[in-house]
């Protein structure tokens, strides 16, 4: 007793520790000012995945060496982007284990395990994309639709809120977004006919603060874009983390496909707010504006990509912009204060629309039955995070080029709770043996005419391609850029690359032996810059030798 009481006092006086402050809302808003940390899913609220760190640069990047590996005890896709706060990394092991580890050595401090309910139906992949932090509390969304607050010091749960019914196919795979004193999440499960929503919860209590239905009900604006009861199972999943503009107090979220996925005739109308980006008041969840990319979508073109916020010149004046590389094959620029359409241009092979009209609405060119539509259902891009570098002024995204599939809407499908509600059929293009799917095997058997991957740099002022780094196989990797004009990206072939962000030249690569399904991130501890990337079932961390 005596010893215990005396020791802490003596220690407190003797150890000149740096102050480890809590992660306040103010710190989250100014995350770019502490580039040693990675405080949100995309690094900061803008969704740019751009780091001001520059110790690793084009001259020395060839000297990167592996410092540690964390092997997940899970065979699910490793889709998480870690957070790093003052030298501690927080990363999820699919589906819902949260791990705190030393960001320098990879050694584990604690693991919190949530065992999802066995009766859950969601989601296609039992994955998780990461966590959020506020104060000393972490927030994890689970595949069985719980939001759990966890003590960042000891991994103990603080509260647990049921967001929706797992047995009705609701689930969550995204990393939550903390805004002020609230934790914002969205639900997935459109493949089973859910009605999607985005909801905010009080970070201290777990009580719901607001909810925005992505499929409006009777009396709500947008409901007129549905007929009959189709809205009840209208889909509109939200499974990738949104972004936030503190000045406008608007939070932006990409919304998924309408249900059923492929039989659009069954749900006539534009089907708002499916395949849209919505701007919500962060305090109330009220819709400020929306922009729909693919009305009455028959192709499963979820718009769940990260809406990237950038302040840049537009028509000679400084503007608050949103860059959106959409799964439907078009790159869009919107005014993020008003939602006004400014520019839209295809960045990959597209034949479902010949272009966009002056309001950004697609000019439809449906393909004859039995012939391929480009892009196919997994899109020209997808959940893999894009990046924007304010230094190069370029927008970077992972692209599936020359990727098409034959869509057959099939017969109307009746909704039955707990049953697949996609409808339709998908066929490879004539002559092609198969097309890439959600995941690849160890051997690449796609034929030469099939899709391939590109890391693409677009000039967001014009939507034109500045450079392309071409891969043999398609790619599911997110992208990271840094202030030393490096671009880090993985791929499906098991390589982790560093490219010159200005030219696309390959500067360094390493074989990590598994596909990347998340975005790389970077942080700094004690004067050393680290770069982490998940590949296969492991997280690899590199630093200069």
């Amino acid at each position, binding site marked *: *007793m005596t010893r215990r009481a005396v020791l802490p006092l003596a220690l407190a006086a003797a150890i000149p520790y740096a102050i480890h402050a809590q992660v306040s809302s103010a710190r989250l808003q100014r995350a770019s000012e502490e580039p040693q940390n990675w405080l949100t899913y995309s690094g900061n609220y803008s969704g740019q995945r751009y780091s001001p760190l520059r110790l690793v640069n084009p001259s020395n990047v060839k000297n990167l060496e592996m410092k540690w590996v964390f092997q997940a005890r899970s065979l699910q896709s490793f889709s998480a982007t870690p957070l790093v706060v003052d030298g501690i990394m927080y990363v999820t092991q699919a589906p819902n284990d949260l791990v705190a580890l030393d960001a320098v050595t990879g050694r584990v401090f604690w693991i919190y395990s949530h065992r999802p309910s066995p009766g859950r139906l969601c989601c296609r992949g039992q994955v998780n994309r990461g966590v959020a932090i506020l104060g000393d509390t972490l927030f994890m969304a689970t595949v069985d639709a719980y939001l759990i607050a966890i003590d960042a010091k000891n991994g103990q749960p603080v509260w647990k809120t049921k967001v929706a019914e797992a047995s009705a196919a609701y689930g969550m795979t995204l990393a939550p977004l903390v805004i002020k004193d609230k934790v914002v999440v969205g639900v997935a499960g459109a493949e089973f006919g859910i009605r999607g929503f985005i909801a905010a919860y009080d970070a201290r209590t777990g009580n719901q603060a607001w909810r925005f239905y992505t499929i409006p009900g009777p009396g709500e604006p947008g409901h007129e874009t549905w007929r009959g009861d189709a809205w009840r199972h209208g889909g509109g999943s939200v499974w990738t983390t949104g972004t936030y503009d503190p000045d406008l107090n608007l939070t932006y979220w990409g919304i998924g496909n309408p249900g059923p996925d492929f039989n659009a005739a069954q749900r006539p109308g534009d089907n708002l707010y499916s395949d849209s980006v919505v701007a919500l008041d962060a305090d109330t969840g009220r819709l400020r504006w929306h922009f729909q990319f693919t009305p009455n979508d028959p192709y499963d073109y979820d718009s769940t990509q990260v809406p990237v916020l950038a302040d840049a010149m537009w028509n000679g004046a400084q503007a608050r912009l949103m860059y959106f590389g959409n799964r439907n094959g078009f790159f869009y620029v919107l005014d993020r204060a008003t939602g006004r359409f400014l520019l839209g241009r295809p960045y990959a092979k597209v034949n479902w629309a010949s272009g966009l009209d002056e309001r950004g609405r697609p000019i439809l060119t449906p393909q004859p039955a039995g012939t391929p539509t480009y892009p196919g259902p997994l899109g020209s891009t997808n959940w893999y995070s894009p990046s924007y570098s304010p230094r190069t002024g370029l927008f970077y995204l992972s692209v599936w080029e020359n990727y098409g599939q034959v869509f057959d809407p099939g017969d109307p499908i009746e909704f039955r709770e707990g049953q697949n509600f996609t409808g339709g059929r998908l066929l490879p293009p004539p002559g092609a043996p198969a097309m890439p799917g959600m995941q690849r095997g160890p051997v690449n058997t796609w034929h030469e005419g099939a899709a391939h991957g590109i890391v693409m740099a677009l000039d967001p002022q014009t939507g034109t391609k500045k450079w392309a780094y071409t891969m043999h196989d398609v790619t599911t990797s997110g992208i990271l850029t840094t202030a030393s004009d490096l671009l880090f990206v993985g791929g499906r072939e098991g390589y982790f690359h560093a490219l010159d962000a200005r030219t696309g030249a390959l500067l360094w690569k390493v074989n990590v032996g598994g596909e990347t399904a998340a975005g790389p991130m970077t942080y700094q501890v004690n004067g050393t810059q680290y770069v982490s990337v998940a590949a296969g079932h492991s997280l690899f961390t590199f630093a200069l030798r």
Partner: protein
Amino acid sequence: MKQLFVVASLVALTAGQLAAQPRPGQYAPADVQHGARLYAAQCTVCHGATGDTVAGVDLRNGRFKRAQTDGDLLGVIVAGVPGTAMPPFSFNPPELTAIVAYLRNMRSLDTARIPVGDPARGKSLFDGRADCARCHRVHGRGPRLAPDLSDIGTMRTADALQRSILDPNAAIQPVNRTVRAVTREGRTISGRRLNEDTYTVQLIDQQERLVSLDKASLREYEVVRGASMPPYRDKLSDGELADLVAYLLSLRGL
């Protein structure tokens, strides 16, 4: 040897083939004790220390959903119950014998030997005179220096809790030991060990920071034997001890 053979045979038989009912006194005390430890480690997360946290199942009172005989119990433990949260377990035959022995004696063990008092009075003691809350955290309140006890009732039996209170030195788990390190620069760091390997150690220090140390950079490194917690053997009346155990048993996490 005989026992081993019997158990192995039981495992081979499908549940329900054995008609023999349990008879009092057929379980060796050593098996019951061994089973209690296995149960605390493997079963309490779902079934709770008192065996009644899964709906429709009350292990302590012999109420099972799918088993009547010892053979049935073995079958469920070995095969699990598909479609439910009950997984198959790969215990070896002596372990299976022990677990069944414990399940059949849970009631007499806990209720006969360990008095369990009033949890509300126990909470008052915990927060007040016994001073437990000075080091332990419960449901988000209190320091993190000692183990968080928010779900201790799902992980320990009354027996184990009583032992920890009366004689923490004997009961402390290695994972909770205090470590003390002095760096080459002369900095002393002390805290509760969270993880350790050949080259590094991870701990939570006195200021509740997560610290990871490279052992090669340390001048001194010591795992402090014995618990920092004082023994309460002479500090609580029997009634108070029973109340404190009752409160701890009531802590079941979220």
